[in-house]
């Protein structure tokens, strides 16, 4: 298969998720329709009583550097995912360190340790805070620890843009390779579940059951009523087409191109409707697949997270873009399995690449009632085998920042 000259290949995947540690555990649980959402150990009367937490796992099995003994929890997760992805890509250690880049996306960084740090500051005073805890709290700590662990001295960037942080990192990684700033980029990110994140989403009145109804997470569902939070980390190995060819490697998929854009949204809030998204998306599809008006994609992995507003907005945008092609397109989202968190898009990207490679649409695991007025083939609660050549990810954040990535199956 001919890769378009600008395509960037995805050759390795690493994931730490509420439904499993590592690519295989994640993918088989996802296809089995498992959800990582479980009761919290809480005595609180109000929501949330559910969340998607990652299981305990031994980071020391993956990490070698002694620096990481003092690293924060989020950094350890992201570095583990990076190690897994590199191993999955079969990348040799002889890779020139200057040509390996790292891009990490995280909305809030290690909030758990940030809260601990501040609690100590406010209860004990400035002279008793932990000096070594502070550097671990900067948003770029995970990317820096990853560089130390892997010994890479190339481009190293951290991005942070709410719910599109993961996608942004992957997009920037793609750009770095195209601009010749790196041959290989580890891109992805992670975010944590923590009390302080709960407090923020509660303030936004975005949590499931805050406005009534049972507490549950079912993206696109007619009876959805809000978000359930989760946590996780994922890193993807992005590689230039020439580099893949030179080492005769195989790829899961190619990232053909992406579009980053903004839609109008009420200040500090999610967009209501986003007709403005149709233009950039149509241009992306045309650029990647040709301008035929009935061009669809085979599978769409949306960012729908069971919120009333966002899910409806996303369906509306996709319907505008794809029109008559919509009924052929499988529409899914993995938030029912992993919950919602800033860098969740990195895990969605892993799922999209695996879906294309395995020709399986991962299910909407909690779906009971699909919207009847929306033209798509909503993924059923069981995984579905289908030939899949192209996959689109769409994601829209609070504040209007949006991004879409188009993947194509590798031969």
């Amino acid at each position, binding site marked *: 298969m001919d890769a378009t000259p600008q395509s960037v290949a995805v050759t390795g995947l690493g994931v730490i998720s509420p439904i499993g540690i590592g690519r295989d555990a994640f993918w088989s649980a996802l296809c089995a329709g498992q959800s990582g959402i479980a009761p919290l150990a809480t005595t609180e009367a109000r929501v949330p009583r559910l969340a998607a937490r990652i299981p305990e796992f031994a980071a020391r099995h993956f990490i070698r550097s002694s620096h990481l003994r003092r690293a924060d929890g989020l950094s350890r997760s992201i570095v583990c995912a990076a190690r897994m992805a590199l191993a999955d890509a079969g990348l040799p250690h002889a890779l020139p360190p200057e040509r390996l880049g790292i891009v990490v996306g995280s909305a*809030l960084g290690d909030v758990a340790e940030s809260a601990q740090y501040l609690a100590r500051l406010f209860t004990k005073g400035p002279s008793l805070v932990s000096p070594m805890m502070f550097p671990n709290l900067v948003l770029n700590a995970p990317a820096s620890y990853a560089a*130390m662990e892997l010994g890479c001295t190339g481009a*190293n960037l951290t991005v*942070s843009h*709410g719910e599109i942080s993961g996608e942004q990192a992957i997009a920037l990684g793609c750009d770095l390779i195209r601009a010749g700033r790196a041959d290989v980029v580890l891109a992805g990110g992670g975010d944590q579940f923590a009390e302080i994140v709960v407090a923020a989403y509660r303030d936004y009145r975005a949590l499931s059951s805050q406005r009534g109804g049972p507490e549950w997470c079912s993206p696109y569902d007619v009876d959805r009523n809000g978000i359930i939070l989760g946590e996780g980390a994922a890193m993807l190995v992005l590689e230039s087409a020439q580099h893949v060819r030179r080492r005769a490697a195989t790829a899961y998929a190619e990232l053909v191109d992406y579009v980053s*854009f*903004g839609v109008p949204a009420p200040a500090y809030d999610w967009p209501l409707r986003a007709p403005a998204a149709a233009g950039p998306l149509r241009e992306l599809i045309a650029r990647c697949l040709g301008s035929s008006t009935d061009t669809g994609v085979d599978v769409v992995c949306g960012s729908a997270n069971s919120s009333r507003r966002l899910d409806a907005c996303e369906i509306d945008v996709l319907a505008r873009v794809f029109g008559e092609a919509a009924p052929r397109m499988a529409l899914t989202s993995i938030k029912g399995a992993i919950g919602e968190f800033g860098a969740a898009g990195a895990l969605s990207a892993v799922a999209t690449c695996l879906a294309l490679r395995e020709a399986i649409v991962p299910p909407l695991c909690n779906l009971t009632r699909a919207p009847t007025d929306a033209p798509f083939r909503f993924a059923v609660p069981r995984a579905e085998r289908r030939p899949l050549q192209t996959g689109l990810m769409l994601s829209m954040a609070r504040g209007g*920042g949006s991004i879409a990535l188009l993947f194509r199956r590798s031969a």
Partner: protein
Amino acid sequence: MRVVITGAGSINALGVGTAAFADGLRHGRCGIGALSLFDAAGYRSACAAEVRSLASPAWLPKAIARRASRSDLLALIAAREAVDAARLAGGTDVGIVIGATTGGMFGSEEQYRRRLGHLQPLRRSVMAATPVSTSADVLARLFGCQGPRLTVSTACSSGGNALGIAADWIRAGRATAVLCGGVDSLCRMTFSGFNALQALDTVPCRPFDRDRAGLSLGEGAAMFVLEDTERAQARGATVLAEFMGYGVSADAHHITQPRPDAAGALRAMQRALQESGVAPEEIDYVNAHGTATPLNDVLETRALKALLGPRAYDVPVSSTKSMVGHCLGAAGAIEALACVVALRGGFVPPTVNLKHADPECDLDYVPGHSRARSIRTALSNSYGFGGNNTSVVLRAWQ
């Protein structure tokens, strides 16, 4: 493809507006003074380069003003000036990329402090502006940036990276103009952190001085409109300077300490020059990272000597952090603006508070007073925590 700067905006301890900033730099005014934003009791240092009397501007819509963080306000004020100067119209081809590290932390940490102490909370909407990305979102909303959007957070090199990414977008055809820059506000979190690391000087910082004892934190924002040169010329925009290129590298060494051989810093500068098509001999001025920590200043000096060779002694190198403090995520952008001011104003800004020479830091740091000098090419360095190094090259526009 050439990328130029068609608008700039500024707010920091030297005042509001690029004219105030240029004036402060020219006269070597020190904006570092007593911290008043929060109680300094218990800290070893009470010095900071604070923006005094920051107020929500009258032109800001209420829906934004109600929730805007301190960082959002700084970013909005600087961006307003840049957009107006450039006469930038919004559109789907106008992107936005901001470098920042603290976001709404100043308000959010206070809310958390009150919750912990069961005190009267601030208004609930304070948390709306917590994430570091809200500044880019409100700027995009107000100034019509519907194109690519990103927030980069690489500690002290965030601002420089934002400019580099903006230029890359334009060169890749993802945008024809980009509103870009950096912003950060003071907060207890960062102040206490640097304090605990014993990295804060108890007097206004003294870059390259023999007795230097650490940095002075500051706050502010610098915003630019970067644009495709042809489009800028076609619409008759005023060009302030040319953005030549940038270079990045990672130390991969330690979460706070820079590499003792300064190899990462050197590599970032070399990459920046290579991409810009500029030879080391062409550099007329270096705006140093110059934090005034014992380690940074000597390592940066070493890296500059490796880059420039014996000519290093002839190139003026100054740290404007001596005047506006270390503004973290905004630093790289503020210092790029200092370069633009120098290129246009025909002078090199000084390193103030530099009184005693350090034998290990023996370059020309322009101590005390600015110097009239026609410069053509400037290099600006930013070295972030965790070893994120970025260098940016700017050139005068003829």
